[in-house]
């Protein structure tokens, strides 16, 4: 059995194998294009292109990375075609790389919290409010560009940690540090901009 597996063309692409990656590709496209239909089209084109180019594909291990590479081209094509549209605040296009240096501000020199997280009441309730998602997006966009990209690939697109490292070009050690800082920053931003805001502001919002 091992032998026959080795004799087959090693990693033949098939529809089922490609379809497995559709959700991840869709989320990636959706984050860039901000439109479900456009995202769906881009994914469709990507899978089709992948299918046609399957002879060029080597090794199933990097399939998802390869597909994302194709998808990026499709998305770039889209922006080129609709060049008149102004792209605002796309997740990984902002260049605010200023202080990516440390989480020192969050902790005192003895390792204790400087301030520290307060308790949030019923945080899930926020999910029902459109205003919360705007703030969530703002907080994400406030992250330094590289950090935002790493966090996006992991938590929003849903890549595995090793795929994120490859895609973002960072080391394993760098990954842990970056994700942790992103969480510290997002947490603080959401606390300041949402959870510590007066209740009335939130409850007035019946959309």
């Amino acid at each position, binding site marked *: 059995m091992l032998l026959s597996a080795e004799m087959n063309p090693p990693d033949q692409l098939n529809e089922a194998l490609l379809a497995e990656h559709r959700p991840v590709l869709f*989320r990636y496209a*959706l*984050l860039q*294009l*901000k*439109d*479900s239909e456009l995202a769906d089209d881009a994914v469709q084109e990507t899978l089709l292109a992948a299918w046609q180019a399957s002879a060029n594909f080597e090794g199933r291990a990097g399939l998802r990375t390869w597909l994302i590479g194709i998808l990026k081209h499709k998305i770039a094509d889209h922006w080129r075609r609709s060049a008149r549209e102004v792209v605002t605040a796309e997740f990984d296009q902002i260049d605010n790389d200023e202080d990516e240096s440390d*989480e020192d501000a*969050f*902790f005192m020199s*003895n*390792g*204790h*919290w400087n301030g*520290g*997280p*307060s*308790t*949030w009441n019923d*945080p*899930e309730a*926020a*999910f029902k409010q*459109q205003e919360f*998602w*705007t703030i*969530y*997006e703002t907080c994400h966009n406030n992250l330094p560009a590289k950090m935002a990209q790493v*966090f996006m690939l*992991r*938590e*929003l697109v849903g890549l595995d*940690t090793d795929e994120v490292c490859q895609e973002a070009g960072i080391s394993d050690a760098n990954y*842990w540090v970056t*994700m*942790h800082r992103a*969480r*510290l920053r*997002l*947490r603080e931003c*959401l*606390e300041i901009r949402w959870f510590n805001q007066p209740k009335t502001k939130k409850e007035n919002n019946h959309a």
Partner: protein
Amino acid sequence: MRSCRDITALVSQGLDKKLSLGERLAIGLHVMMCSSCRNFQSQSQFIRRAAKGYIKNLHHQPDNKTET
């Protein structure tokens, strides 16, 4: 005794990989006594759910214009 700084770093790692028994114990003992780290722990999980929710919300918007 590990500091809040170390514990939160472990909590973050625990979201993406399986921690050792020793590490999990250290977290467990620490958050029993430290409400800030306990909050960080639940809020880091909340942030993960929020990321998924954000995508879902983006997907279900009828168009990509946000009302202002």
